[in-house]
């Protein structure tokens, strides 16, 4: 009864969804990104209940379920806590592979900060110290930090 199926040419239809979004960065996120843009300084926020220093800064602490209103200066250098060298490419990656992702414990913070490392990939490993390299032209974007570099 369904013999005809064998003779059907399977067609495909190409499509793409490109919907523009304009996300409000929020009060806390805006202050963080403006500080990077204008002063090349990384800010965190500290929960007064548990003492955790978050970077990027948060407006609330999910652990204690309280507001956070204390700002803390965070260093632009710290220690790699996790890393991976990426060997494949896709269109959202900011640079061509190979490059690395790292979770970096910046001095003064209690959580890992996710960013990329472009150089000295053969020398990166957990425990190594790295420093932020800021872009010359900054727009208030997470990639105003171009990448982190080994110290």
């Amino acid at each position, binding site marked *: 009864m369904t013999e005809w199926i064998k003779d059907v040419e399977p067609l495909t239809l190409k499509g793409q969804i490109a919907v523009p979004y304009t996300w409000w960065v929020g009060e806390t996120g805006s202050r963080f990104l403006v500080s990077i843009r204008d002063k090349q300084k990384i800010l965190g926020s500290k929960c007064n209940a548990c003492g955790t220093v978050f970077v990027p800064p948060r407006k609330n602490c999910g652990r204690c379920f309280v507001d956070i209103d204390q700002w803390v200066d965070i260093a632009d250098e710290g220690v790699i806590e996790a890393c991976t060298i*990426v*060997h494949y490419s896709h269109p959202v990656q900011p640079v061509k592979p190979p490059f690395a992702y790292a979770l970096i414990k910046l001095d003064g913070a209690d959580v890992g900060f996710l960013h990329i490392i472009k150089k000295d990939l053969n020398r990166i490993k957990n425990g190594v110290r790295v420093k932020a390299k800021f872009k010359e032209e900054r727009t208030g974007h997470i990639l105003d930090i171009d990448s982190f570099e080994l110290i």
Partner: protein
Amino acid sequence: MDKAAIVGVAQTKYERRKKDQIFADMVFDVTRAALDDAGFSIEDIDNVVTVSNDFFDGRTISGMAVGDASGGQDKNISTVSGDGTFGAFYGLMRVLSGYKATLVVAHCKGSESSAHLTTNGMFDPIFHRHLGIEAISSAALQANVYMNKYNIREEDIALVSVKNHGNAKNNPYAQLPMDITVDDVMKSRKIADPLKLLDCCPVSDGAAAMIIVNETMAGKGKKKPVWIKGVAHCCEEYFLGDRDLANPTALKSAARRAYDMAGIKRPIKDIDVAEVLEPFSYMEPLWLEGLDFCKSGKGSELLKDGVTVMGGNLPVNPSGGALSANPILVAGMARIIEAALQVRGEAGARQVKGANTALAHGFNGPCGQSHCVWIVSGNK
């Protein structure tokens, strides 16, 4: 918890690309097959939960597109956009709140979009998405933390891939049954250190369905009911840097709650077989630790000691797991279905002899941000 049971299950064969079937075709097939398996007709079903993801499907309110195919017309139907274990959890909640029979059906065609782009979309758009991070690179970060913390070698996690692809040879639904060696995994293409191609799941198309019923309806099916003894899920922090990626706290919490419900005291002794969602090889030992089958850092020793192989004390992923077929979202439901087949004694060549209590596990979010644990049994 009131008594509830799984009475009908069905899966498509999982394949790299199902050229001849659209989403609705797959959903219709598994819906009808699950009804046949239960000995039910569509009139016996009084509500439907579909499981799909709008980004993967390329349409919004993607569940609505399979309403007809899932027998949802004139019924209460809604959608879970998350792993199938969570969709099944919602289906169970509906039965516990008064419905008599929920059909839960999950579908995904990984072949039709880009997993890199869609999984990049799960990350924070302001701080993380522009870095290009997605499912594979975030998993690689977790593997790096976990393996460094406990001195786990790449060969140790490669062995998971060897086991699961080998197990898949006994599963007619699996996409990648393979005879491979640790050496094959080690020599496969580097993806994101320490993960290599054969440490990673394939891109898959497929669908699966299950019917969850109350105690009265359970007696009306044609197959032995698979009783739901314990279920729980739990979530942890969103930002990767906030979490200890080597310590799956949400999984530990979900497991403890599910075990308490099911009266499981010593998981390694009380559970006969486990199906866990491991799209990356390192995840299997890490989740086994979170599930309290062993101490932290000792998950890979369970495999080396032969505990988790077929014939061991606790076979893990007799189906071949997600490494052998990973239709995203469907893969978690497949874990429950495989657990149910084991309890029924209908798992064919992959049957664990005498299995009566089985665990199924799934997760949502990068690096297992949220986990769902199921305990099912042949005992009422």
